[in-house]
């Protein structure tokens, strides 16, 4: 363009001629860009966080022996040794379980259940109770509950156990007391390091070390089932289940339907709600910014009239204003989007307690959206093509 220097000079004058107007436009564009980038970033982050939040529902994947389906159809008292062995798995399979999935840690806890008899140390009043041997990262990671009277030094004791709140009431024990366990002549004892309340079957059980339960049941190296808490979207969890069952063909790996269905439903509802509101807010933010800016643009008719009067073609004039709009869009977008990203990090902290990770893809996207919005806002100027310069100068129209 031969008149390039002149073109840019006019653009510069357009921009700097009225600072308060420039300020208003930049404010509108910048605020729009900030909201766009903050919401986009927060939305991406929130969907990811949501799956983490769902893990407060506890374990969602269970690995049980293939024939576990028979478990309910025969009473344990009549079950003989081979039957009991059939309904357990080799604990060596624990080593095959992934500890991470999609870069998220997957807690896994192995259980061996024994129906034995339990008494408080010092009394000889034995009562039947479920003794669960556990191994792994601990109960609280897979089953949320309220632990009371927790003592860290006792927890590291090799013969420590955790007692459900109902069982504790039944045996009149509290943390620090000792329990005697027995099953068909085999004996063991353990020190209570915590009382746990989950509201589920755990409230009535006694959680001893896996080895203790294996000795009581005379099933060395065997486990009844493994509970895992897998973080991810419903589809990702399904994929995880497929992967694991391929790896461990002898076991039956399944999700807990109660959680899977409710989580899936809630996840889609909530993420749908978020996306819908965010898209709505974004569209209307751009519309609002556009409407506000068009108002400013129309007032430019004096400038257009003057340019036409001194011989500028309408295409040239529009190009001038487009250049101005793009420059303003870039400036407002660059600053606003950066502010928005910073704000979203802080907002993530306010909502989820963890700072949201800035997604860099959000930055160019929101800058581009801002530029598009600012170009679109310059469009009412096209209508000025029909303006006759004379009437503008007379102060009409």
């Amino acid at each position, binding site marked *: 363009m031969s008149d390039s220097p002149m073109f840019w000079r006019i653009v510069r004058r357009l921009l700097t001629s009225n600072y308060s107007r420039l300020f208003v436009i930049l404010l509108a564009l910048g605020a729009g860009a900030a909201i766009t980038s903050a919401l986009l970033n927060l939305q991406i982050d929130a969907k990811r966080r949501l799956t983490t939040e769902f893990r407060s529902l506890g374990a969602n994947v269970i690995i049980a022996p293939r024939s576990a*389906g028979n478990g309910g*159809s025969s*009473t344990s008292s009549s079950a003989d040794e081979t039957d009991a062995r059939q309904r357990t798995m080799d604990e060596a399979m624990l080593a095959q379980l992934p500890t991470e999935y999609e870069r998220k840690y997957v807690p896994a806890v192995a259980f061996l259940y024994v129906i034995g008899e339990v008494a408080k140390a010092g009394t000889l009043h034995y009562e039947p109770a479920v003794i669960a041997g556990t191994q792994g990262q601990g109960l609280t990671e897979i089953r949320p*509950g309220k632990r009371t009277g927790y003592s860290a030094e006792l927890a590291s004791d090799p013969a420590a156990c955790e007692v459900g709140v109902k069982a504790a009431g039944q045996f009149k024990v509290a943390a620090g007391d000792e329990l005697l366990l027995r099953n068909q002549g085999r004996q063991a004892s353990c020190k209570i390091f915590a009382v746990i309340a*989950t509201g589920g079957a755990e409230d*009535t059980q006694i959680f001893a070390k896996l080895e203790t339960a294996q000795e009581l049941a005379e099933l060395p190296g065997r486990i009844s089932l493994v509970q895992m808490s897998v973080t991810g979207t419903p589809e990702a969890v399904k994929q995880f289940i497929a992967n694991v069952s391929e790896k461990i063909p002898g076991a039956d790996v399944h999700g807990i339907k109660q959680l899977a269905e*409710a989580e899936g439903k809630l996840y889609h509802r*909530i993420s749908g709600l978020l996306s819908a509101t965010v898209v709505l807010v974004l569209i209307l933010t751009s519309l*609002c910014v556009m409407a506000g800016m068009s108002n400013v643009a129309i*007032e430019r008719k004096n400038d257009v009239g003057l340019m036409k009067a001194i011989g500028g073609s309408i295409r040239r004039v529009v190009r001038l204003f487009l250049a101005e709009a793009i420059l303003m869009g870039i400036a407002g977008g660059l600053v606003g989007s950066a502010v928005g990203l910073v704000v979203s990090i802080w907002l993530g902290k306010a909502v989820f307690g963890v700072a949201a990770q800035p997604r860099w893809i959000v930055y160019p996207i929101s800058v581009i959206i801002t530029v598009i919005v600012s170009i679109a806002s310059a469009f009412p100027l096209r209508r000025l093509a029909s303006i006759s310069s004379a009437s503008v100068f007379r102060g009409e129209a």
Partner: protein
Amino acid sequence: MFLRLVADSFTRRPKRKMLTMAALALGMAVATAALSVSLDVGDRLAQEFRSLGANLLVTPEADSLPLEIGGVDYRPANAGAYLPVEDLGKLKTIFWRFNIMAFAPILETQVKASPLAVDNVPDTRGWPEIPVIGTWVNHQVKIPDGTTYTTGIEKTNPWWQLKEGRWFEEGNNECVVGKNFAERHGLAGPMGPSGASAPASAQRSDLGPGSELYTYTGNANRAPGPALHVVGVVDTGGPEDDAIIVPLDLAQKLAGKPGVYRRLYVSALTKPEDAFARKDPKTMTPAEFDTWYCTPYISAIALQISQELKGTDVRVIRRVAEGEGNVLTRVRTLLWLVTFAALLAAALAVGASAAASVIERRTEIGLMKALGAGSGLVAVLLAAEQLLLAFVGGGIGYCVGIVLARLLGERIFGFAPEPKMFVLFVILSLAALITLLGSAFPLRRASRYEPAPILRGE
């Protein structure tokens, strides 16, 4: 004269005013939609969370320890305590009765069963015991105030889905079988551990609607129970898949325990626990206790249930209650944030266009001043115009926003939020406030204009 000036300004430049109004209306529409959805969504989401199942478990207070592994209670049927069914209507008389969404009592027992009528007195000693779960489906409960309430396990445990057939009806000896049970024991014959004792002539087909199950109760042989008509196959993904599910009264008959149940699942709409809810009610002052009691916290509802049903121990199912609380609080905060963003965006856009509309009217202001109008009068005139714009634009925005909120609500929850007068009030005052604030700065400058340079066009 004042009104004429205002009216004139609208009729003289309708296009310009339309644009400002459009910005206002759009902004207020987002604000209305976001506000309506946010106000409504908490309750809707809380209801969605009920698909996680019951959040309260009621058991007898003086019970022996259940021997429960994987959802199956291995206690003999005569051990432990029971609760009377006739009290259950009282659940709908507690303070938060409308927050009790559903409840279902459970009585478990065991029978021996066969799809074949082997003969009248078979030797059932070698047969395994099949868990039987007695509960309600679509059951009419009499409430002490004279009305009836329909509830059942299909509401407390919505993931119990029928694979085939339908749910049983009470009083017809009907039952529903778990899907594993149906598959495994489709083989006709007594359900031995391996099915080895099946007669060779029996044809293999899955147990399903239309099949008959012959029950035998008691430990010794030859105590034929009722013949059950299988009307459905249920898929629960849990231990119930290996069980027979029957109406509660039938389970009571099979167990020989008329009029009782052992466990009760209650699904209640609750407010997520906050710091106040975690306080021990015993340490609260009377005023605090009243507030706590009259807030639908899960712990408060649990207390109210145990007050109404004597001799019970009401426990909070923590995985459900806590998971719900966590997610709900976060989503609500997030939505309020988005709403706030929408309000902010609307405010900025409206403010900007209000500012622009004042700036472009410099000449007019100059003229008015030249004709002798004081700065105050000019400001009041312009403010009146802006306010008029705000009310009209805000009103239009509200209407558009309500439609938007309906669309959103219906798409996501299948439920449209009710228009609220409160929202209209908030939106109109917000619109007025924003336009006034937006025009305040340029108005102040306008009131300082010297008419002469403006009229000269400088």
